């Protein structure tokens, strides 16, 4: 049972700044750089040699993405926030692609709490910025509404927004990866039990791991990952637009 190893991201290398402060670069960071590089190359490939009259499928895909994203932002946030489209698209693409990495057996950066906490903090900063646009004191006064006794609860609910967003995304992806790890371990021990009589290396080969986890992987990695990316982006849009509407 030593093979069951449920931990966070693997620490690839450490950069010591001072004795007590060490920057740990983990698999999560490296994998998100891989995702960013992949998305960068995808952008370059899709937008190469654009023509006014679309000739290639690549251009059609690029136009489809841009149009869909613009429509989504326009529907949920209104024309005023159309500048948010690249941000929302980046959020969605990064989240979805990071979650989809686990389909290839790589560590998905979204299973790391820090990644999603970072995104939530950006969203929280944006929400607060749009709430403060009406005036700093008005923003502070908003906490004492409707009566002053409720101030602590208002503060908690304000902080609960990014926290709930973080844990929703993290919990979904992480539960998926934990369950997948358990299933893989269970299948490995089951195949060791059934095929243990085979000679040599074949005895240790986990036959059951071929094909069977696909169904679960399709649900947890693909459906869950894409759904959570969509929901994270939707909630971001809703929170930001409702924050701006308040003043």
């Amino acid at each position: 049972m030593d093979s069951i190893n449920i931990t966070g991201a693997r620490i690839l290398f450490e950069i010591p700044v001072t004795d007590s402060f060490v920057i740990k670069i983990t698999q999560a960071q490296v994998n998100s750089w891989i995702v960013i590089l992949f998305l960068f190359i995808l952008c370059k490939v899709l937008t190469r040699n654009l023509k006014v009259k679309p000739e290639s499928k690549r251009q059609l895909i690029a136009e489809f993405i841009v149009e869909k994203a613009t429509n989504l932002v326009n529907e949920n946030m209104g024309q005023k926030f159309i500048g948010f489209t690249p941000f929302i698209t980046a959020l969605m693409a990064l989240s979805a692609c990071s979650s989809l990495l686990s389909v290839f057996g790589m560590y998905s950066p979204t299973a790391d709490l820090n990644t999603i906490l970072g995104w939530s903090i950006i969203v929280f900063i944006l929400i607060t910025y749009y709430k403060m646009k009406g005036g700093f004191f008005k923003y502070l006064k908003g906490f004492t509404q409707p009566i002053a006794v409720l101030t602590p609860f208002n503060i908690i609910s304000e902080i609960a927004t990014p926290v709930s967003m973080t844990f929703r995304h993290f919990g979904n992806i992480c539960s998926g990866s934990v369950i997948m790890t358990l299933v893989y371990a269970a299948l490995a021990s089951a195949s060791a039990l059934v095929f243990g009589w085979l000679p040599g290396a074949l005895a240790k080969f986990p036959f059951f791991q071929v094909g069977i986890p696909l169904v679960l992987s399709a649900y947890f990695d693909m459906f869950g990952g894409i759904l959570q990316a969509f929901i994270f982006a939707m909630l971001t849009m809703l929170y930001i637009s409702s924050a701006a509407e308040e003043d």
Partner: protein
Amino acid sequence: MLERAIILAASAIGAGLAMIAGIGPGIGEGYAVGKACEAIGRQPECKGTVTSTMLLGCAVAETTGIYGFVVALLLLFVTPNMFLGKL
């Protein structure tokens, strides 16, 4: 040794209890999906809107369950190490 066993057992029991929080979202989401099915049955042309709204609502309703899950994870993987290190 006994302290280790007690800590591990208490963590596991706590994690199991924390996952009771999964009941609430389960019921709530089932109810929401049922209502969404009713809505789609009444107005099949609104399928896309109803589905996306339902998914969003389900995601929000899921939050408490996810909180329970995170607490269970903390109890299983973080707290034992924390306490065992002090022993």
